[in-house]
């Protein structure tokens, strides 16, 4: 997700951001996230919204220290590439106490968190982030 949010842009995307809704191509069957107008694999525009799994495996991550004003107090932000099985997505990671704990294939799960705030008086933006799973299955 872009770090540059606006009230209307965020509102338009809330279905995708709050619920992890991806798009499934009716032509080739592949799933992508966030949903685009056309399938990135075959170009078909016949897409349907599908709710993605909330658990996945961490493939890789990057650490971001250059944080926009509205999320400065969350620095550093760990951004993960996550394999959800049906597709791979990028998302913020949270509850990371120590970057050394971030290992390939570690299980992560989605939960709602604040991503950014417009100063003290503006809007608060909530998104699904991923954290190390609470209970191993």
């Amino acid at each position, binding site marked *: 997700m872009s770090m540059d949010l606006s009230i209307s842009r965020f509102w338009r995307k*809330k279905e995708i951001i709050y619920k992890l809704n991806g798009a499934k191509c009716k032509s080739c069957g592949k799933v992508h996230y966030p949903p685009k107008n056309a399938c990135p694999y075959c170009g078909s525009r016949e897409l349907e919204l599908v709710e993605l799994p909330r658990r996945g495996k961490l493939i890789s991550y990057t650490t971001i220290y250059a944080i926009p004003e509205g999320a400065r*107090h*969350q620095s550093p932000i760990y951004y993960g590439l996550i394999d959800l099985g049906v597709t791979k997505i990028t998302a913020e990671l949270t*509850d990371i*106490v120590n970057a050394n704990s971030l290992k390939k294939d570690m299980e992560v799960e989605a939960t*709602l968190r604040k991503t950014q705030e417009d100063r003290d008086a503006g809007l608060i933006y909530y998104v699904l982030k991923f954290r190390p799973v*609470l*209970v191993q299955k």
Partner: protein
Amino acid sequence: MATPKAGIHGWGAYIPIYRLPLSDIAKIWGWHPDQYKGLAVESKAIAGPDEDSLTMGYEAAYNAIKRSKIEPKKISAIFFGTESKPYAVKPSATIIGEALGITPFTMASDLEFACRAASEGMRSLIGMAASGLIDYGLAIGSDTAQANPGDVLEFTAASGAAAFVIGRTSNASAIIEDSVTFVTDTPDFWRRASQPYPLHGEGFTGEPAYFYHIENAVKALLERNGLKPSDFDYAIFHQPNGKFPVKVGQDLGFNMDQMKDGLVTPMIGNTYNASALMGLARVLDKAKPGQKILLAPFGSGAGSDAYLITVTDEVENRKPLAPTVEDYLNRKVLIDYASYAKSRSIIHVIK
């Protein structure tokens, strides 16, 4: 008089990962090292920098809905009880409702009654479900409790959430057989509209507020149902610290065996709107069919509710469907005062 009954279909809790040892607060503020020992709390749960009462309430509600085994769209009322609203004006209930797939044909509002707002939401949902106005409703108690740094309240003001899906009695995990509310105008604790931290009325916090209201609500409930303390398997009270709930329980005639499973404040501090309700969630995690529970939340200002709850066979099917309170209690990372001050916005930043 026949009392309208309702059922608890799902329950859920949330505790953030971070814990601040009370010894750290005592050290930073120069309290006597034994100052907090009488509170019977060792550390308190602290919401992380990207958490607030809304995000915590969301996860507790997510867990409660999982256990209810119903589609989110079947929930037609959300009451969010908190005294740490992210927005003074803009309902948290609609954001949670939208994120959980409950909206749009939904009654939704944020309630305020210090620590018992969520309990008022439960009382309302009982009536709404029993009357047939709704099939299911969601009551959430969640707080990132504030306390003036250096105030004695800072030792216990903690973060956490609990939530319940309430509906008709059929197929419920537990039946709410009866409930009583007892309120008066009492100046024990308040926060003015534009103030960041609450104040407490010395001399009013214990006997005239906490004990007076809980005892009156519980006694009225027992009397009108012809019950005595020994008829209950569990007793759960609001937990501003680890000491008050034990004292009020013993004063009323309950023993430690009945109270120990519902006590969570000794491990994580007072989670305000989630305090007694998280005790109920923990008890439902363990309770057996047929067992009886007494629940008595309290809120400053002041008031208490007393509930008579009977666990059903269905409880066993629901327990494994979401993380338990114990799962959250066991997941913890100790932090220092500096991390706590930053994540709870105690450090003032010019934006």
